[in-house]
């Protein structure tokens, strides 16, 4: 505790350490000094421009802004003197003169009008001085009405300093100064990414959600967590008439009140008319391959409504029939990383104890399976070693094979914050991205050359003796092998492969190795390769070599994709592990679970996602239960996957919509959306967080947990879980990592980090501070050789295709393409390619091109984007009408069993019809 002193505020003696402003101290004393441009929300700096919070300080010539001013010893301050109050009122009066009439203003209940009420000013004696057309309704999600703007600049701080998107600025000056987007462009045409931070910050309603309703018309607010990416942003739903009207960021450990476009504006998919509300059964005689005319808006061409009894009975009996004919291994299940931990746990328990097989997997296989494999092998733990928020303590940050402003937008804001504060950002990715502008280095390598580049970086570190020798000695093993292996990988030797100049490789190597605290983030660009495990091994070696792990600001962080991919993996929605990554093939462990679940378990690891497709083609698997996954869009070489789905004797799909996968189902079970259920999810930071139901289920849709249990019981299991809390309690009995977490604790705290040993344990956010959870306690170096991508370019297929996401669309688009704002912002599939390549092909923006690989083809419009390098194209995989996975390669990484969807060879032609 630093020294304290006292000062006087409104006649009261206050002790303080001088770190907080007069405004904050006054608030603590129960006095809310009027304020407009100030907010005490996290991440917002006081700016002191509105001058509504002026206070009088004895002995000073002029008044002082209480939001900025910190008291000093003996200072005598009053916020209630005539002089101070005169200023507070006059500021409001000046601003009111240029406001619309209160009842006609965008938000008559706004903070601004509340402050006007507080100081007792309702009218102005000044004439209105503002004119012109100040409205802008061009954005699908937000309206601008600068008539209500008070130039407080909170939106600029929100856009520039909090989210670091740098779109909003203040143009011109003086009374003419005004809020602009980019070059005073319409908001809808600007670089705005619609995070909505400005809307949440605006005190007047000048910036407002299109869906806005007055606070007095909101029925209830429900605290929950975002269902989209792995960042795990906490949020609050504003609900009216049992509909989610708007969403606000809440102060969770991962997001600190920030949200992105999906978390802010992406929730009306749950109210979409295409939502399934009745169980459906395939009509007699309708072929599964008859798909093209099936419209998810009207499933009744192919399916008929059924009662829950009928649908569940048919599903269960169909699956039992397969089991009877083919044995347990004739069945498989795909669970979901979109649901709760409780659902994932019960789903895998159902497959293991009801089906009797380990054939259970989920989209982690297409995500970070290779990263997890490498991490388990080398450092003994598959999760991140530090939360991404540790970036604020790092001075060098590597982001490789990831595009966080698109895929982890809120995490990216913290990276940008760190860069703006002076941390050096190193981006390594074949494509440019929004973070490149903030980066000290962007190594725009050739696709698929990560091992070459990373080995070269490590070679420099070894060669120049920048290794952390004592760390290597005390905490690692097999360094000698790595050192010998690296010798050949000089930056010069690798330059042709990677396309990166040796000087840049050296500079980056030195920067990272000599950093006080360096941290590494990676994404699918690392994992989705046949050498994905090798890519991750290199990153792990890089961290071990430099000792950049186990301290604040250091670590290894694979940015997890789905909101609950961490949790779903933890609870064993994967074929080779039981909960907490305990091997199914270890008889001791298996025995423990057999006792706990009171049933025999399959002793052999099950099949993974792509292997299951192959097994269906091989007629080994005949029945599947798929909950909330969409392999008919997400699987590589998706034609092959769709064909497999078509071949099944019994396919049960449980989902919100008639997805491309559900189109092949025998039985479709209408399930619950995230805002309709209670449950926990685990984000990329290992934070277990509480999700709460905000609205009722539509029609006859049911809770997923209930559906799983109904199926289980029809398979002969005698389950009786009445509430997710009972499932969670069961999980804590078999998962040591979360044994200190309870449902009640999560209800109270909303978020607890694991490993968490007991009820008072705050949870361990930094791992490997002392040792690694490996047999030797040491981290292991595993050298990686160069392996070419499975399918390299040639004369017939000369162009590299890489795939990924768009900011607005989640995964296969089943939710986000039904969210009106997200759909409006990115309504159509495009292939992104460099302007030079378009010129060579004589293509105009928007022209159709035909893209063809050895596995399939599609027609798509061209989008010019200089972020993509020559010889390469990018297609997002969320569009059913031009599914990128028709083209992708299903070759697998031999260890992680992840498919190489980041790299395949294609040919490209201007479409004759365009």
């Amino acid at each position, binding site marked *: 505790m630093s020294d304290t002193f006292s000062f006087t505020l409104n006649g009261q003696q206050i002790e303080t350490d001088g770190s907080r402003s007069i405004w904050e101290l006054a608030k603590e004393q129960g006095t809310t000094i009027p304020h407009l441009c100030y907010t005490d929300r996290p991440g917002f700096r006081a700016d002191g421009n*509105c*001058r509504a919070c002026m206070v009088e300080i004895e002995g000073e010539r*002029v*008044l002082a*802004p209480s939001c900025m001013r910190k008291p000093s010893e003996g200072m005598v301050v009053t916020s209630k003197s005539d*002089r101070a109050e*005169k200023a507070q009122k*006059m*500021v409001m009066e*000046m601003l009111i*003169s240029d406001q619309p009439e209160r009842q006609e203003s965008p938000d008559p209940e706004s903070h601004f009008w509340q402050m006007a009420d507080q100081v007792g000013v309702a009218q102005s*004696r*000044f*004439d209105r*001085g503002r004119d012109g057309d100040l409205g802008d309704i061009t954005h699908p999600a937000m309206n601008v009405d600068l008539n209500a703007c*008070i*130039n407080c600049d909170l939106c600029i701080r929100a856009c520039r300093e909090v989210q670091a998107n*740098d*779109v909003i*600025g*203040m*143009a011109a*000056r*003086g*009374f003419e100064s005004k809020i*602009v*987007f*980019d*070059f005073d*462009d319409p908001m809808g*045409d*600007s*670089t705005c990414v619609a995070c909505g931070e400005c809307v949440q910050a605006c005190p007047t309603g000048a910036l407002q959600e299109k869906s806005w309703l007055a606070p007095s018309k909101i029925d209830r607010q429900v605290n929950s967590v975002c269902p989209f990416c792995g960042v795990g942003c906490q949020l609050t739903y504003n609900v009216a008439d049992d509909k989610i009207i708007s969403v606000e960021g809440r102060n969770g450990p991962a997001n600190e009140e920030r949200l992105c476009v999906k978390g802010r504006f992406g929730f009306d998919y749950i109210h979409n008319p295409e939502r399934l509300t009745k169980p459906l059964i395939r009509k007699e005689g309708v072929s599964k391959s008859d*798909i*093209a*005319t*099936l*419209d998810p*808006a009207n499933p009744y061409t192919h399916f008929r409504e059924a009662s829950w009894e009928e649908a569940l009975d048919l599903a269960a009996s169909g699956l039992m029939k397969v089991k009877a004919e083919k044995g347990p291994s004739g069945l498989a299940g795909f669970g979901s990383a979109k649901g709760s931990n409780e659902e994932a746990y019960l789903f895998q328990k159902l497959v293991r104890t009801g089906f009797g097989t380990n054939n259970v997997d989920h989209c982690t296989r297409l995500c970070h399976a290779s990263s997890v494999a490498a991490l388990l092998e080398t450092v003994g733990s598959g999760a991140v070693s530090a939360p991404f928020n540790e970036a604020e303590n790092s001075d060098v940050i590597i982001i490789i094979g990831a595009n966080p402003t698109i895929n982890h937008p809120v995490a990216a804001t913290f990276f940008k914050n760190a860069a703006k504060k002076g941390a050096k950002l190193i981006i390594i990715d074949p494509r440019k991205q929004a973070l490149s502008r*903030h980066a000290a280095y962007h190594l725009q390598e050739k696709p698929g050359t990560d091992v070459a580049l990373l080995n070269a970086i490590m070679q420099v570190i070894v060669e120049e003796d920048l290794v952390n020798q004592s760390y290597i000695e005390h905490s690692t093993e097999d360094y000698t092998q790595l050192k010998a292996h690296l010798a050949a990988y000089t930056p010069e030797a690798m330059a042709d492969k990677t396309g990166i100049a040796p000087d840049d490789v050296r500079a980056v190597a030195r920067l990272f190795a000599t950093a006080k605290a360096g941290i590494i983030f990676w994404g699918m660009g690392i994992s989705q390769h046949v050498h994905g495990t090798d890519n991750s091994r290199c990153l792990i070696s890089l961290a071990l070599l430099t000792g950049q792990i186990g301290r604040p600001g250091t670590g290894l962080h694979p940015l997890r994709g789905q909101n609950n991919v961490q949790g779903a993996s933890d609870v064993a929605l994967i074929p080779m592990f039981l909960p907490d990554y305990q091997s199914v093939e270890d008889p001791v462990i298996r025995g423990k679970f057999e006792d706990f679940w009171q049933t025999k378990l399959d002793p052999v690891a099950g099949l993974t996602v792509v292997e299951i497709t192959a097994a269906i083609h091989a007629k080994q698997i005949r029945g599947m239960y798929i909950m909330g996954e969409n392999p*008919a869009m997400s699987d590589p070489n*998706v034609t092959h996957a*769709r*064909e497999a789905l*078509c071949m099944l004797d019994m396919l049960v799909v449980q989902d919100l919509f008639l997805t491309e996968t559900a*189109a092949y189902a025998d039985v479709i079970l209408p399930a619950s959306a995230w805002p309709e259920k209670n449950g926990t999810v685990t984000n990329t930071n290992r934070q277990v967080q509480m999700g709460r139901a905000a609205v009722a289920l539509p029609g006859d849709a049911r809770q997923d947990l209930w559906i799983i249990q109904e199926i289980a019981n029809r398979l002969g299991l005698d389950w009786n879980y009445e509430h997710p809390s009972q499932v969670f309690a069961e999980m804590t009995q078999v998962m040591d990592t979360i044994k200190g977490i309870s449902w009640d604790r999560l209800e109270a705290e909303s978020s607890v980090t694991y490993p968490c040993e007991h009820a008072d344990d705050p949870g361990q956010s930094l791992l490997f501070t002392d040792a690694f959870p490996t047999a030797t306690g040491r981290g292991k170096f595993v050298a990686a050789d160069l392996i070419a991508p499975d399918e390299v370019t040639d004369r017939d297929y000369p162009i590299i295709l890489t795939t990924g996401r768009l900011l607005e669309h989640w995964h296969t*688009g089943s939710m986000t*393409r039904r969210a*009106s704002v997200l*759909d409006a912002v990115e*309504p159509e599939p*495009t292939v992104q390619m460099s302007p030079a390549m378009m010129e060579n092909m004589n293509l105009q923006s928007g022209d159709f091109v035909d893209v063809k690989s050895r596995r399939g*083809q*599609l027609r798509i419009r061209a*989008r*010019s984007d*200089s972020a993509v390098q020559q010889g390469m194209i990018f297609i997002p995989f969320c*569009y*059913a009408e031009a599914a990128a996975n*028709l083209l992708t390669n299903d070759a697998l990484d031999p260890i992680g069993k992840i498919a190489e969807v980041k790299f395949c060879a294609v040919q490209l032609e201007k479409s004759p019809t365009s």
Partner: protein
Amino acid sequence: MFDQTTVAPGKAKKNRKSRYKPRGRQPSNRAIEEVKQIFAGKALHKDLLIEHLHRLQDEFGFLGKDHLAALADLMRLSLSEVYEVATFYHNFRVFDSAEEAPRLTVKICDSLSCSLNGSAALAQELAQTYDGGAIKVTHGACMGRCDRGPIVRVENQYIAHADPSTIQATIDKALAGEVPAVGELDHVSYADYCAQGGFNKLKELYAGKLATDNVITSIEESEHRGLGGAGFPHAMKLNSVLSIPGPRLMAVNADESEPGTFKDRYYMNSNPYQFLEGLLIAAELVDAQTVYIFLRDEYPDTAHLLKTALSTIEIANLTNGRKIELRRGAGAYICGEESAMLESIEGKRALPRQKPPFPAHVGLFGRPTLINNVETLYWLPEILTKGADWYKQGTDNGRQGFRTFSLSGHVKTPGVYKVPAGITAQELIDDYGGGMKEGHTFRAYLPGGASGGMLPASMADIPLDFGTLEKYGCFIGSAAVIVLSDQDDLKEACRNVMRFFEDESCGQCTPCRVGTTKALALMAREKWDQPLLLELSDVMRDASICGLGQAAPNALLCLMKYFPEELV
């Protein structure tokens, strides 16, 4: 068959335009190439934005949005970061395209001194004759040549005592592409300055013959003050900067923009080396790593001269390894406020910073920074050479030191006058200004430009210095004395001053941004609502962030107080 799937879910495609390019405005290939070429090999630090905007505008005559987008990309700035700076400063002209941009911009100075010399009528005439199409006729703020008004600026040429015929000739030539080279100024040359003992004190300081402490003590004894307007004791400022560990920086405020002020220009143009010696002495005293000279855009002749002088002292090895950067302002009175100037040097909009912390401690790029005005530095070599006692001898009416007055308005010989501190307005007019112009009777004067208030002739016997005028609601500021006569409309003079502040307000804080415009609206009325004006003025003075808003109502308040007859 399996390349087909169900009808796709997205519905918005039907009624919304798809996007076939990256989000937001994209520069054309041509603009990218042009901008790349212009800045090839040039540093691209963020703080150079204003310099680079000048470069673009010099090249194309205006700032096209396409080029601005390309520049943003090249400098790795966001679009808004570039746009807000480009639109903040008066002298940048942003247009969508060349078709919209005029070929020539003609600005008539409308500050009080020039308006006393008939600039309003001239502006009207020029607007009628030329405005529209290829030529844009508009107003400009004080151009620092107030002894020779009215001043008209045609692009980068400044025409003194402008009349329609000289303007016609200048415009014709400019349209024909004939632009005269920047004129050489008659000044004390490097050789002459050295011959007079110039740079001796600096060399002694470098050689250790003069100790820093002793120099600062001498300055303290001389009671030398900052002469940019605030009059802060110079030695105290030096010590304040020195109290924070380095590396330190120095910024020189050569942005005198207070209407009626043209003394810094006089010193730089007539004796640049004495100014630079003062600069180097101060830089050495605080061990400043880099010195930034922030020169107003309106002084291209001075810029030309200083560039030569800077390379001369560089060659003569007088900088002691210090980097001296000449930065070009872009037209913003607010840059006279020291922290706003720092923001501008950092390449941003010139918004004054909140204090504390003070720039001496947390200044340019967050470093401790010595900020001095040109004249403050100009005196240093002379004080050190001739001694503190010599400087203190400059006295009048009990005041000490020398002051440099910029005298304008209805006097016979307006100009820059170096006089003992404490002189009265009456003495200044009579002894230096040659008395009132024919046909004019002394009525009122503004002792410190637009911001220092206004006093009646009956109060012209007050010594003019720091601290002597405050009790009358006035201050000396930059010592710009503007003399009004019985021919002038004092209400209009006050409106002129308020219009100036409204135009120059940076817009950051409510009392100044909104207050100046509301005050102006109230002052435009036939009958003034004096209680409301008074109330508004009180809050502007009390609650504005910087001196601009705080001083904006001074003239208005003086009018209500000392000239009640004007408001009957």
